[in-house]
């Protein structure tokens, strides 16, 4: 079921598990991008930089101080809707996680590099 038709975005898409083409769990739908009129989902937004958006205002301010601002391509990723393969019990992508910059947190090399002081 690829969503060319209508879906309840909040019920069926937001917060769902994302898996890549090989079935690896690579994150959750932290937010969605809507555009056009009537609005259509044009991208999934993923990353811990987006968590503050999902919190009540006061907590969001605190969370933003901890996580820093949204940095696109780093702690916030945009996955174009075209990359979505199907919606089952998960959101399945057409490509492997690496090709979309997802699931880096499970890459030990990434951990080390991200924590180096000169990074």
């Amino acid at each position, binding site marked *: 079921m690829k969503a060319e038709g209508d879906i309840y975005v909040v019920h069926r898409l937001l917060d*769902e598990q*994302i898996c890549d083409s090989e079935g*690896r769990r*690579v*994150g959750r739908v932290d937010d969605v991008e809507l555009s056009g009129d009537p609005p259509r989902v044009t991208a999934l937004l993923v990353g811990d930089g987006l968590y503050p958006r*999902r919190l*009540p205002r006061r907590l969001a301010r605190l969370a933003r101080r901890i996580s820093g601002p949204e940095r696109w391509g780093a702690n916030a990723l945009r996955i174009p809707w075209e990359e979505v393969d199907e919606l089952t019990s998960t959101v399945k992508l057409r490509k492997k996680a690496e090709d979309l910059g997802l699931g880096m*947190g*499970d890459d030990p090399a990434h*951990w080390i590099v991200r924590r180096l002081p000169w990074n």
Partner: protein
Amino acid sequence: MRAILKIALGIIAAIGGFLDIGDLVFTTQAGALFRYDLLWAVVLGVVGIAVYAEMSGRVAAVSGRPVFDVIRMRMGFGMGLLALVASTIVNLLTLAAELGGIAIVLELLFDAPYGMFVFASAIALVVIAALLPFGGIERFFGYGGLLLFVVVATVFHQNPDWGDVGRGFIPSIDSSTLYLYFVVGVFAAALMPYEVHFYSSGAIEEGWTEKNLKENRLNAIVGYGIGGILSVGLVIVSGYLFHPIGVQPDDLGTVALPMQGAFGETGLLLALGGMLFCVGGAAIDSSFAASYNLAQFLGWEWGRYQGPRKAPRFTASWLVFLLLGIAIAESGINPVDITEYSVVLAVVALPLTYLPVLLIAGDRSFMDRYANGRIATTLGWIYFAVIVVLALAAIPLLLATNAGGG
């Protein structure tokens, strides 16, 4: 034939894995303080955990979604995060209590310092978790826990007044706050949230599908049901031996005394051995539950079946939780006290875990024809109401009774 055997083995593991330090402590204290009067609360708790375990296992098998997956979907990020934080605190306290419990039992068996055994037991857990596959871990502790059937033998050996025992199963409300505190404690000890977190994630670890639904039902209803007999037995043996002479069980070691009274050293060793496996299994379950929840909430790759290489963040978080558990257990607080806090705080976290499970299990768009039927819906909502009431009462009771201290 082989399929039946496999199901039977799973049920037996569920029976043996039913008890944890919270059950051991609260049932023994309840018996000592109120004799058989709280047996009904034990039964209420056992039915409750069976209902919710069956539901969460069914959701996992049919829709592939474990509990924290469901929580984030149904409650959104903000409320889901609250559930995550609350569950993690409770799971960590539970883990610390179970680690402390292992150390106490080892101390009773081998007479060496407690602090050393906390470390040794944590290392043993890491080794067991690393060497055995998921199903093996469950069975190792589950079968070992069956040693505790010595409790049931003790009940028959004591041969209590069965009429008195029977009357204990009829709900009665005594208005003393201490009694109400123990109603909450005994009930909550049976329904610790980590059990459901672990059970539903376990269904995915084992690759369950619709085909395993019968197994799921038998595990939850028969396995937990028979496991509940152990809780009932603990109340009875304690009520029989401790209540008349006014013993106040504040230590884990006291739990084994009735079995020593009945069967001497053999009874004692069976009881301590069973306790060791039960508490050890619960330490594994609660530590895994903490990492399952975190990974599922954040969408990380997770699972013992993936191996540490494929799920590094999950594995690393498990080790971190274990270290935090050790730190709390080593702080010198009596594990029985940690247990009481973790059980009572668990009641407060329970509604956040159970509401989403109940909602998804009844949602036909996810569950199709496997959605809750009339019985599951009715029981589910009744229990949810009970849980909410107890959650509201838990903290005031904890404060009013000084954590059961009277």
